[in-house]
């Protein structure tokens, strides 16, 4: 079943064409990677799905419904969570609070009930805590539960951001460079987690990533973008050896590589 699909989306910034008639289809339960050199339009694609940007033409559909009429804040509620390339956490709050903010879409209590902290609100809060605790267990964040984000090392923040995305209870997560800036060990852990969240939680993953080892190790299909156009879509081995992909990454000297 097709979960996420873009139909010939084009985005222009002034005179620059960031995306040109990009079509992609992400199947439910797959790990889908998007690769491409800097400026290829990978993050733009994510920002379209998050509704931070409007496409000039084309359509984006999630579970068969168009997203274009939705405001950015409605996307999480539909089951799409994301992380950011330059971590965007709530710096002056604890890890726990950050993850709890991820539960925002499943809140029920009315404003007066919250002001009075009625028993129903307490029950709801405890339910949120339980859900968050599962994420903490899964990502092994226990030692950092009460720590402020501002004092955490980079690698941990990356994991917390993944945790916040998971706390929303998504069907699809968009991971923007999940391994950038991570050490080799951290990257390996991240790879395991990404695979686990598909295998154990049934969450579909779309990720933008530069680390080709990680991409080929865990992804089912890869889409290569270059200058806003789709170069090729297919299994990692195919994409990695595609001459246009190689030249886009390494410049025009494909003879030696072949």
């Amino acid at each position: 079943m097709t979960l996420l699909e873009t139909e010939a989306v084009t985005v222009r910034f002034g005179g620059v064409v960031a995306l040109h008639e990009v079509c992609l289809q992400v199947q439910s339960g797959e790990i889908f990677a998007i690769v491409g050199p800097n400026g290829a339009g990978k993050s733009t694609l994510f920002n379209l799905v998050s509704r931070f940007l409007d496409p000039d033409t084309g359509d984006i559909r999630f579970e068969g419904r168009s997203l274009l009429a939705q405001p950015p804040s409605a996307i999480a509620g539909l089951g799409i969570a994301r992380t950011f390339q330059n971590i965007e956490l709530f710096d002056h709050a604890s890890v726990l609070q950050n993850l709890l903010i991820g539960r925002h879409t499943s809140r029920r209590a009315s404003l007066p009930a919250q002001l009075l902290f009625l028993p129903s609100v307490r029950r709801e809060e405890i339910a949120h805590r339980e859900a968050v605790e599962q994420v903490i267990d899964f990502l092994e964040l226990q030692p950092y539960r009460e720590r402020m984000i501002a004092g955490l090392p980079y690698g941990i923040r990356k994991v917390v951001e993944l945790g916040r995305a998971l706390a929303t209870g998504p069907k699809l997560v968009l991971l923007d460079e999940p391994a950038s800036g991570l050490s080799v060990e951290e990257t390996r852990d991240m790879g395991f987690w990404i695979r686990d969240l598909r295998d154990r939680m049934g969450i579909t993953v779309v990720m933008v990533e530069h680390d080709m080892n990680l991409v080929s190790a865990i992804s089912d299909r890869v889409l290569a973008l270059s200058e806003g156009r789709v170069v090729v879509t297919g299994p990692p081995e195919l994409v990695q050896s595609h001459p246009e992909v190689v030249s886009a990454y390494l410049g025009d000297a494909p003879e030696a590589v072949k």
Partner: protein
Amino acid sequence: MRFRFKEHYDQDIRLFADLADGLRYGSLLLGAVLLPFVLDDFLLGEATSVVIWAIAGMGLMLLTGHAGQVSLGHAAFLALGCYVNAILMNSFGLPFPLAFLLAGVISGLCGVAVAIPALRLHGLYLAIATLALSMLTEDIIVLAEPWTGGVIGLTAPTPEIAGLVIDRYAAPDLFYWLCLGVAVLVTLGYRNLLRSPLGRAFIAIRDSEISAQAAGISLARTKAAAFGLSCMVTGWAGALMGHFFYSFNHEVFTIILSIQLLLMIVIGGLGSIHGAWYGAVIVGLIPQAINLVRDAVGTVAVPGLETSLFSVLIVLFVLYEPHGLHGRLTKWKVWLDLFPFCRRDMFRRQKSYLRTERFR
């Protein structure tokens, strides 16, 4: 150092962390309730003023400290609450409890109305817009003479709750308890909010609007709620202020009042309920401290000394303790708890470089 072992989620959620914590705040409240039996009428008046400042401070803290929306115009909402309360009682003959409640609600609704255009403004620009709002308020009060009495101003009638006459001069203890009661209720509501989803949404839009949206938080609704609640509380503080001053005109609610309110919560420590209270206590203590020194040294009054001392305090806090008095006290507490194992660099601030805010 005591370590709290956690066995239930409720331990993070409940009002007080443990029994000792509850006892501490309980005894503090008891002390505050018993204050009228210890202080003379003048000092009790000062204490009342501290409590009213604390309510106003909590109103602004909610907006600025937690939701991250800086307002340099909260005197406008103090004025609104003050005038609406007095007008409802004077001209419409409403009983005090109803007029008081409505004063807060109307201020809150006006706050929501301000939030809608304010959605488009960030940081500095919001501060400027609210500054203009505060400047306008003074003139509007003068121009709206049929309602506000213009430059002559209004007098607030004596409040009465269920036959109990709360005269600010004849029964200062009753008036103090009234203010304290409101302050305690506001504090509880504030605390409840902070452990609920909406309070977390405030923190989220303060720290990163973009990822708050990605987490499903609507900026418009959350900001409107922050403005609404903040202005409601500020309106209540204004209504009490009206009764406290007895008579008032536009000169009470100047831009200076707005600025003082903001500076007060900065001194107290942004982002905590404690901060609003500490700030109010400092504001209340400065004139007393000056009086003490003046009596001891025997000099004449120097105009503007209070504001200036207050400003010097602000400068020192911003430079040396950006987290305000609350931050400083928390650090001392940690230091004592860990003694003698506290390292110097534990509280070191990270060096920050400013990237232009022209891009956001």
